[in-house]
């Protein structure tokens, strides 16, 4: 059953009416209602607040990395483990084809339903997850395979075992290695880009965000708790931090915003996957046109150019 957020209620009513009209085989009513839906979508989604966008980024029906992998890849095989400690299931990796191109996809995976949420640790990786990502990224480099990173995490897991096994080191190592990985890399934030835990698979030749995804230095709740001394101020924190795809593109901190359906990826997974797939293939072709040194220099210079200061 679909989940609707408060501000999606008007959509919910029309969706229900359409479903009823379909049962009665009233095609005329369906047509009218679908036009109403289109108008309502325009009205509701054109003027979303930052906080509403955050809610969409975390929407329980939003497609996760595995959904995109299933929709986009063919002949895909999953690769497991960091070859050192374990297999962190909050990071997944597949080799296969997207549009006849050999690719490796590495993504953060949230679970759907209690059982899967626990299995995926709510999409919060431990160090071995980041080390698994790096191991497979190195393999992609060896075989000249492009990588698609799918970023979607509330953050790296804050726990005792994670600290014991070097959460900081694992993230730092990825930032370092991915900045100079020789193969072509494209990172897409598909939902939540939570801080260092997101950045650890978010350093790439092209960094894009789906329309309703966010990318932030700390969760809005965490920011509100620290700076406002009040976790309930998360709406203010969301707004102040400028974490939406639109804002980050304006600030020139990401390369592109992917044209996710206006109604949200959760209501039209196919269209969302198509938009992401097309972006990936087009970006890859643009990167094909550069030689390796050019591409690596461009990546390095882009990473190094970030900063707001005067002198």
């Amino acid at each position, binding site marked *: 059953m679909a989940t609707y957020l408060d501000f999606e209620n008007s959509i919910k009513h029309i969706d229900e009416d359409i479903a009823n009209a379909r049962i009665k085989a009233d095609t005329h009513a369906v047509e009218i209602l679908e036009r109403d839906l289109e108008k309502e979508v325009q009205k509701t989604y054109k003027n979303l607040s930052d906080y509403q966008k955050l809610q969409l980024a975390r929407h329980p029906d939003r497609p996760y990395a595995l959904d995109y992998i299933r929709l986009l890849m063919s002949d895909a095989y999953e690769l497991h483990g960091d070859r050192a400690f374990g297999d962190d299931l909050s990071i997944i990796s597949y080799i296969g084809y997207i549009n006849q191109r050999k690719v490796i996809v590495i993504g953060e995976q949230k679970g759907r339903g209690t059982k899967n949420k626990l299995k995926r640790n709510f999409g919060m990786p431990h160090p071995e997850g980041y080390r698994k990502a790096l191991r497979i990224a190195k393999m992609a480099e060896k075989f000249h395979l492009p990588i698609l990173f799918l970023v979607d995490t509330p953050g*790296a*897991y*804050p*726990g*005792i075992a*994670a*600290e*014991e*096994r*070097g*959460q*900081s*080191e694992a*993230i*730092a*190592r990825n*930032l*370092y290695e991915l*900045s*100079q990985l020789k193969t072509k890399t494209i990172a897409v934030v598909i939902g939540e880009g939570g*801080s*260092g835990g997101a*950045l650890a698979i978010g*350093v790439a030749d092209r960094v894009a965000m789906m329309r309703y995804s966010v*990318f*932030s*230095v*700390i969760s809005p709740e*965490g*920011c509100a708790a*620290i*700076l*406002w*001394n009040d976790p309930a101020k998360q709406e*203010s*924190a969301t707004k*102040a*931090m*400028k*974490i939406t795809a639109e804002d*980050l593109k304006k*600030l020139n*901190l990401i390369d592109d915003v992917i044209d996710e359906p206006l109604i949200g990826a959760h209501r039209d997974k196919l269209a969302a996957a198509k938009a992401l797939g097309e972006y990936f293939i087009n970006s890859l072709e643009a990167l094909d046109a550069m030689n390796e040194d050019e591409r690596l220099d461009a990546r*390095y210079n882009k*990473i*190094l150019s*970030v*900063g*707001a*200061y*005067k*002198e």
Partner: protein
Amino acid sequence: MMFGEIFNKIRKKQSTPNEAPSHWVKCSSCQSLMYYKEIEKEFNVCPKCGFHMRISAQMRIELLSDVGTFEQKDTTLTPIDPLKFVDKKSYVKRITEAHEKTGRNSALISGSCTIDGVKAQLIVFDFSYMGGSLGSVEGEMIVRAINRAVQNKEGLVIVSASGGARMQESTFALLQMSKTSAALTKLTQAGLPFISILSDPTMGGVSASFAWLGDVIMAEPGALIGFAGQRVIKQTIGAELPQGFQRAEFLLEHGLIDMIVHRANLKKTVADMLRFLIQDVPTDAFELKIKQ
């Protein structure tokens, strides 16, 4: 009665830390009272129990660099407020207050110096400037120090003391993690060493970027070092944390750092590491000693 009230008032006044600097310092570990000069002489290490108290950035530079050799760099870099960030206070106000408090525009001091005769680029974080947080200015200063190290074929030494990335710069601050980490690849390509010293506290975005990328990673005894803050971990797991969790000794035991170095030995250890790791050391600097 009257006398009691007055006495209480006086006592209250004396116990307020912000008024009239006290000449007596209490060790936060063994609670011994010491005259401030006694403890300053030891660079804030308690002479009674060896507890390493926090130390100012200025004192840290005096501790590590040879007298008169520290040449400060990049002092003109100044933060701006790219997001017009306002929480309970505006970021602009916080920058101004931090400047008034420290006389600086950044949460670190960067410069070139010699350390026991070895030339190096030295960066020291200043926790009293917005919790030593990593923002755009700090990131840029680290990159420039790396570039100078490459240019002059010197090693890089960074002493971290930071709560993490600066929230008021949001994603700009987050991306300083990848910026500083990427820049360190140039130091590697040039075959030059980076000695990372983790002092109390080194957390979040600083620990999860350049600070943990040292060729040699040293920590001060008892320093709190980690990715997630203890309050957050406690809330997440819903349990108390083990004794000594995220302290330097815990990290050493788990294989996450190379060594714990007492402050009294820090300068010599850093200099020895630099000498050892930097290529092209003139061989006549050493004489061969054969153990009998």
